[in-house]
Every structure is written in structure tokens, then in C-alpha cells.
């Protein structure tokens, strides 16, 4: 046990003995002073404040302002004197209580004058009240609340034995179910009075005399003029409130609220029994020789305070810094949370031992790359490539795009205007070529070699987009054929649109020949299957194309009379705008063609690629483009005249293209030469 606790206890026991001597006649039989009250007389100990917890200091009567001062404030004395007559005028004033009030007032005056108390322990509790009353605001507050105590009779009261003081942590108050109002009902004394004094009042609530006292003044009157009356002063209003009303009108037996022993032992023990005491204080009580293993009488009489069952999260959030031992909480638990939902709480999250210190040092890794010079060269090259990729490229200027668009418009305008002028004017300034290509001459000779009224197969393998060129190219040769030989014509196409183009060509371009479908010619329609279809047709024409374009039996008609195989045709004329179209018929019909001659009429773009087949003798003639058709038209006496009609425009267009290409080449050459000269300069 600390020395200061021992000294304080001895002093308190001595003071209690003195008080007992003065009040024994008026009080109930006294209980012998006991040494079990360890905190008795703690108010007189002179230990440094920093060694005493705040709540303990308040229990022993040490206030914030003057814990050592036992002198009540004159202002408080004056206010009490002013309140006393008014309170004594209450209609339910008990004579016994009046006598006690008088004695208490005498004792109060004596204590104030002397500054000392006969039983300094309890008086110091009152002195603490007085010291707290140095603040006028507090005194006024509790005095007003004393008046209002009778009006709050129905308000819930704290359970008996529960200390209603702010010295005990708030959470303890809430666990005990003690509302704040009763504490305030003490007339502001709750802030200054020790809790055990309030507790003692609760223990003595069975006393009807005390209970009937409506306010603090009456409590002062009802209390014996002993040092313990200071505790009664504070406790009386607390217990008087529920007893007012109808019970106050009944004759009551005046019984002293508390004896000094109760104040010193029962109440204090009850207070500490209901509180979580520090370990050091609990140990002191348990090791006190001669102490009773039983609870104090107050605790025995009252219902035991059962610890509340708090939810775990509430338990975890309790401000338990005073209860947590340094060993459990650790030194790092005192950290104040400054963020999050735990803002303002201290030591809630225990520090994890060893968390702040890394368990092991990370293994060092070598950052040196084993790269050869070649690798470094490649890396450098890659880096340069990436750097080049990230460099912005200059955007092509809009002016250049505009110039290109303008150039395109200019070339288009020149072509359209020049060609339109040449066509619309009916110019015949450019003569047809005198030198007819050999392949064209061979084609004309092949046509002229066809027997009259012989079956001839005409293959229309071109698309509608090239109708203008193909009809102009094939018109003279076909007209020459029809005009001279009057062949029985059979048309077929490997293009879905070919049969329609054939009808257009015969009924349009060759309209002068007046060929009638079904009489002079038949339309075998569309030959599906591409080159496989061509091969199938070469092997068996009747099986590959059994019906005509109109699903008529063309092979039974007079046009194809006696024609059953491919070799039965006198000639095969293929009209195509592409190399593929001509080559398929050349390749796939080579074996089945027999003595039939094959003539190719092609577009100008396919002519150069088909010319080797003429040179190799695989075809008997080739007419490619307007240049090749010119010879056929010459041979046909200028009929039907399409080549001649287009020839001037065609020639002007060729010259115009030559001029434009030459001018463009010279322009770019000049620009390049100029730029190089500027760079050289």
C-alpha cells in the first residue's frame, strides 16, 4: 500500500471517530469504525496530484481549482443563507427535518468560520463543493436546479448504489443506467461533489424523512450537523425527488440518512465496487490486512452491479486507456486516430508487434545485364526506331491537297471539253490507220474463210461497263461476218449479263443485219461454272447448255441443226474485255475445238496479253481495241462506222494524254532541279 494511502486512511479514521462522538446521540447505533475503508481520509493526503487519477481526486474532494482548499467561498455561503429561508417555507416541512437543518446550519457556519472540520474527511467533501462554488455560474446553476427538483419528481432516478458523478467515465455511467438529469438535480454539485457522496444518498433513500425533503436546502436541514452532513447535503435532493407528492403528506420517521461509517465504508466501497479500478488500487484493497472479504454493507444491501453485456464493437470502442495495461496495449497504442471512423479515439487499434520493422531484408538482385555489343546495338536500333515512331510527322498541307484536287479538275475538264468538242463537231481530221495489225488482218481472213450459213459460236464474255469499247471493237468484224457469210449464230456467255449484252449487240449495233432470234441466231444463255463450265461445254455442248436463255430447246432449232459438238461450229468468236476470259476459252477448248477457228475480240487493255496466243498459233485472229477494229472496219468498207466516229476523239485523247504526261514529267523535273539548286546554294 502506498504511504499516502495509508496516511490518508488513518486520518480519515481519526476524523470519523471524532464525528461519531458528536453525532452518536442523534443517530442510529453506530457501526464501529472499520479499517477496511482504504480510501477513508484520502482527502487529507498530500500526495502529488500527478500520482492520483482525476476521478480519485474528485472522490477525495480535490477540485480542479483548489483541491487543497477547505475554505468555502463566501459567495456560496451567502447564497445558501439566501436559499434557506425560502426553502424552510415549504408547506411540507417536517419539524425533525427543521431541527436537523438548524443544526446543520450551525455546523456549516462553524466550519466556514474555522476553515476546518471536526471530521475533516467528509467536510472536505463539502469543502470541495464550496471550492467548486467559487465559480458563481455553477452555484447559480445548482441552486436553480434545487428549486426545480420537486418538478422532476417523476424523472427516472439512478439505481441505488450507482455513483452519479462525472468523475466516473461516461461509459460507466451509461452502463449503470444513470441519467444525466439526477446529477444535474444536485444543484450543480454533481460537478464538484464526490461520487461516493451521491452514492451514500442513494443508499439512504429508505429514510422517509430525507426523502421528503424537496431540495438541497432541506437536505441540509435534514442532515445531522456532522461532518457527514456534507454528503447528505448532496444526496438529499437526489433521494427526495421521488418521495415527494402523496408520500410527503404521510408522517415520516426521521432517520439519519447516513452514518459516518456508511459514508466512509459502504458508499466508498460501493462506488469502487461498481467501477473499474486501477490495478494498483485494487491490489491495495485486496492486500489490506484485516479487510473483510465481503462486500461493503452498501453493496450487500443493494443489488449487485452486474457488468453490462456490451456488444463486442462497443467493447472495442471503449476509451479504455486507463484500464489497459501497458503490457497489453503496448507503448504504441497511445496514438490518437486522426482520420476515418475512429477519429478522435486513442489507442483503439493495437499496434501489431513487429509490423513496423521488416521481418527480413529483401534479397539483393543484380541489375547488371549480360548483353553483348550486338545486343546493345540491337537495343540501340530498337530505341531509335521507337523514338522515330514517336516523332510527329509533318501533316501534309491542305494547300497541296487543294492543288491536287484542282489539278484533277483541270485534267478532267480538259478531257471532257476536248473530247466532247471532237465528238460533237463530227471531226474527221485524223485518218484511220493505214497499217492494220497482223492479228487483225488474220482475224478478217479467218472470218472471210468461214463457210456461208455455217454455225458460228459467239461468246459474249464482257461486262456492261465495257460495252462502249467492246461493241465498237467487235462491230466491224461481226458485221463483216454477218454481211458476208450469213452464219447461223449461237451466242453464249460465262457472265450472267453476257446474254443480255449479246441481245443488245445484235439488236442494236448489228440492227442493220436484221438478225432474228430463233431464226438466224439462238441465245444459249448463261453458262455457269466458270472454266469448268467452259470445259464441260467444250466436251459436250448439248449437256452443258441444254436449253436456251428462254428455256427453249435451242439444239433442236434450225439454227443449230446438225451441231452437236464444239468442233461442229465453223468458228468460235470470243468477245472479252479481259485476259482471263480469252485465255479460258483458249485453254479449255483447245482439245475439243478441232478444225474450228478461234478469233478473239478483246479490249485494248487485254490485247497485249492475248497477242502471244496469236503468235503461237493457238488463235487465228485477234482484234484488240479501236486500233485493231480500224482494220476490220476498213475491210468492211467503213461499216458500221463506229471506229470512224470515235477515231478523232480517240486520237485527240491519246495525244492529250501524251502531252499531259510529258508536261507533268517536265514540271516535276524542273521542280526537282530547282530545289536541288536551292539546296546547293
Amino acid at each position, binding site marked *: 500500500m502506498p504511504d499516502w494511502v495509508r496516511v490518508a486512511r488513518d486520518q480519515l479514521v481519526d476524523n470519523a471517530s471524532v464525528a461519531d462522538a458528536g453525532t452518536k446521540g442523534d443517530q442510529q447505533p453506530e457501526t464501529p469504525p472499520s479499517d477496511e475503508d482504504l480510501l477513508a481520509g484520502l482527502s487529507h493526503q498530500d500526495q502529488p496530484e500527478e500520482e492520483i487519477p482525476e476521478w480519485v481526486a474528485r472522490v477525495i474532494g480535490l477540485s480542479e481549482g483548489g483541491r487543497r482548499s477547505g475554505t468555502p467561498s463566501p459567495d456560496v455561503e451567502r447564497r445558501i443563507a439566501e436559499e434557506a429561508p425560502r426553502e424552510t417555507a415549504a408547506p411540507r416541512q417536517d419539524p425533525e427535518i427543521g431541527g436537523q437543518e438548524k443544526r446543520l446550519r450551525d455546523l456549516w457556519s462553524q466550519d466556514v468560520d474555522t476553515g476546518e472540520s471536526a471530521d475533516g474527511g467528509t467536510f472536505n467533501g463539502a469543502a470541495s463543493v464550496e471550492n467548486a462554488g467559487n465559480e458563481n455560474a455553477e452555484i447559480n446553476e445548482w441552486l436553480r436546479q434545487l428549486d426545480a427538483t420537486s418538478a422532476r419528481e417523476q424523472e427516472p432516478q439512478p439505481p441505488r448504489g450507482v455513483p452519479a458523478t462525472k468523475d466516473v467515465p461516461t461509459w460507466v455511467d451509461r452502463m449503470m443506467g444513470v441519467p444525466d438529469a439526477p446529477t444535474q438535480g444536485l444543484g450543480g454539485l454533481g460537478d464538484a461533489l464526490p461520487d461516493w457522496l451521491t452514492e451514500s444518498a442513494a443508499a439512504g433513500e429508505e429514510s422517509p424523512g430525507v426523502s421528503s425533503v424537496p431540495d438541497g436546502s432541506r437536505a441540509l436541514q435534514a442532515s445531522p450537523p456532522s461532518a457527514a452532513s456534507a454528503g447528505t447535503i448532496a444526496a438529499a435532493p437526489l433521494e427526495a425527488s421521488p418521495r415527494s407528492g402523496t408520500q410527503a403528506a404521510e408522517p415520516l420517521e426521521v432517520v439519519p440518512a447516513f452514518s459516518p461509517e456508511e459514508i466512509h465504508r459502504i458508499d466508498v466501497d460501493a462506488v469502487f465496487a461498481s467501477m473499474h479500478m486501477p490495478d494498483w488500487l485494487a491490489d491495495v484493497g485486496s492486500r489490506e490486512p484485516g479487510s473483510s472479504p465481503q462486500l461493503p454493507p452498501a453493496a450487500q444491501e443493494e443489488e449487485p452491479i452486474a457488468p453490462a453485456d456490451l456488444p463486442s464493437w462497443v467493447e472495442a470502442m471503449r476509451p479504455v486507456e486507463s484500464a489497459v495495461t501497458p503490457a497489453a496495449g503496448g507503448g504504441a497504442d497511445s496514438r490518437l486516430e486522426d482520420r476515418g471512423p475512429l477519429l478522435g479515439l486513442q489507442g483503439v487499434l493495437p499496434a501489431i508487434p513487429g509490423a513496423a520493422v521488416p521481418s527480413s531484408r529483401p534479397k539483393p538482385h543484380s541489375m547488371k545485364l549480360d548483353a553483348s555489343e550486338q545486343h546493345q546495338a540491337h537495343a540501340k536500333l530498337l530505341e531509335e526506331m521507337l523514338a522515330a515512331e514517336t516523332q510527329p510527322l509533318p501533316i501534309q498541307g491542305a494547300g497541296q491537297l487543294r492543288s491536287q484536287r484542282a489539278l*484533277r*479538275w483541270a485534267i*478532267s475538264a480538259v478531257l*471532257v471539253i476536248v*473530247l*466532247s468538242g471532237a*465528238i*460533237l463537231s*463530227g471531226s474527221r481530221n485524223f485518218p484511220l490507220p493505214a497499217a492494220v495489225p497482223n492479228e487483225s488482218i488474220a482475224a478478217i481472213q479467218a472470218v472471210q474463210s468461214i463457210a456461208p450459213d455455217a454455225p458460228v459460236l459467239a461468246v459474249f464474255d464482257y461486262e456492261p*461497263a*465495257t460495252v*462502249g*469499247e467492246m*461493241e*465498237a*471493237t467487235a462491230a466491224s468484224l461481226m458485221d463483216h461476218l454477218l454481211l458476208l457469210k450469213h452464219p447461223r449464230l449461237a451466242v453464249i456467255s460465262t457472265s*450472267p*449479263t453476257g*446474254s*443480255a449484252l449479246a441481245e443488245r449487240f445484235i439488236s442494236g449495233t448489228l440492227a442493220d443485219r436484221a438478225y432474228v432470234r430463233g431464226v438466224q441466231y439462238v441465245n444459249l*444463255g*448463261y453458262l*455457269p461454272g466458270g*472454266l*469448268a463450265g467452259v*470445259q464441260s461445254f467444250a466436251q459436250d455442248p448439248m449437256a452443258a447448255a*441444254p*436449253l436456251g436463255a428462254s*428455256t427453249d430447246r435451242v439444239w433442236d432449232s434450225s439454227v443449230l441443226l446438225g451441231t452437236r459438238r464444239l468442233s461442229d461450229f465453223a468458228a468460235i468468236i470470243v468477245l472479252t*474485255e479481259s485476259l482471263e476470259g480469252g*485465255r*479460258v476459252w*483458249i*485453254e*479449255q477448248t*483447245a*482439245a475439243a475445238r478441232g478444225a474450228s477457228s478461234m478469233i478473239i475480240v478483246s*479490249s*485494248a*487493255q487485254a*490485247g*497485249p*496479253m492475248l497477242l*502471244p*496466243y496469236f*503468235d*503461237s*498459233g*493457238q488463235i487465228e485472229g485477234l482484234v*484488240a*481495241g*479501236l*486500233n485493231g477494229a480500224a482494220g476490220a472496219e476498213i475491210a468492211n468498207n467503213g461499216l458500221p462506222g463506229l471506229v470512224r*466516229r*470515235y477515231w478523232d*476523239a*480517240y486520237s485527240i*485523247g*491519246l495525244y492529250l*494524254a501524251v502531252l499531259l504526261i510529258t508536261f507533268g514529267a517536265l514540271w516535276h523535273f524542273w521542280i526537282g532541279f530547282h530545289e536541288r539548286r536551292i539546296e546547293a546554294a
Partner: protein
Amino acid sequence: MSADLISTVTAFLLTVMILSYLVGDNPAFRIAVYVFVGVTAGYVAAVAWWQVLLPDLILPLITGTPTTRAMLAVPLLLGGMLLMKSWPPLSRLGAPAMGMLVGAASAVAIGGAIQGTLFPQIGATLESVDSEQLGSLEGIVNGALVLVGVITSLTYFHFSARVTADGTVRRLGAIEIAAGIGAVFLAITLGVLFAGVYSAALTALIERLDFIGTFLGLR
């Protein structure tokens, strides 16, 4: 209004719309293109039905003999499997039909190319230097150009090369020279092809301008 006039007016409008592309892409040009694509697709579908499916498949299956029907069951089955290519869950069923198409077409094309192009063209090249044609200067020059042109052009497509001492990659000297000469022949050939393409396009433009002038009565 006769059908010829309607078709002529339509052709004129479509021609103008197509020629409007000379000033840049515009809605009129796009409409004309869409019309052509749509009309062509519709016409091709009609042709395929009326000239292929109906006379060559449907009618024989209905009116043909059992043998004919059995023979047509194979293309009918393969055609149906080929249609499954347009349905992703069953697109694998179209693989056999597609494989048959590719195989048959490749066989036909390769056989035709060998017999119709490769051998005849090699023989024609060899004949270009025939003793009969070398009797005249023209024959000698022509034969020499054909021979040199064919050899050098084929050499141009020989890309095997070696790394020289200075790190550069080069072909052998003789091959390099022959490839250079072949490049000249190829350039001339490409020039001829370009001229042919330009000539074909020019002829088509002229025909259209003539049509417009005729339609407008300017000619």
C-alpha cells in the same frame, strides 16, 4: 413514252451521275453506284434461277427419270451443304462442297494452263529462233528480242542473292545484268498495259460523251 425513251433517259441520268465523280465523291455518284450494284445483283439472281436452277435442277428432279434424279441428288446435296456456309453453327457442313469446288477448279485450271498456255508458249518461243525465221533480218531481230526478252524477264524474278564482303546483298553479276535487261522489258510491257488500259477507258468515255451528245441532239 416508249420503253426505249425511258431506258435512254435513265441511261443519260445515270451517266451524268457517274461522270459527276470527276468533281469528287458526291451523293449522285453513290446513288448511281448503289443502283448498279442492286440491279446487277437482282439480275444475276434472276438469271441463276431461270437459266440454271430451274432448267438444270428443279425441272429434271420433277420430270426426270429416276436415274436423272439420282444423279441430280449429288449437286442438290452439295448445293445445300454450301448454303450452310452462311450459317455459322453449320458452316462446317459447307466445307466438303467448297473443297470439291476448289479441287475441281484447280484441276481444270492447271490442266488447261499446262496444255493451253505453258507448252504452247514455250514452243512458240523456241520457234521464234527457228532457222526459217532467221533467214531475214527482221526475223533475226524479232527472234532475238523474243528470246532475250523472255530470258531476261524470267531472270528478273530470280531473287536468290549472296552477302558480299562489305555486307551488302547482291545477286551474281550475270544474273544482275540479265535482271536489269529484263526490267527494261517489263517496264515496256507495263507501259503497254497502261496504254491499253488508258485506251480502253478513253474509248468508254468517248462512247458515253457521244451518247450524251446524241441524247441532247447536239450531234
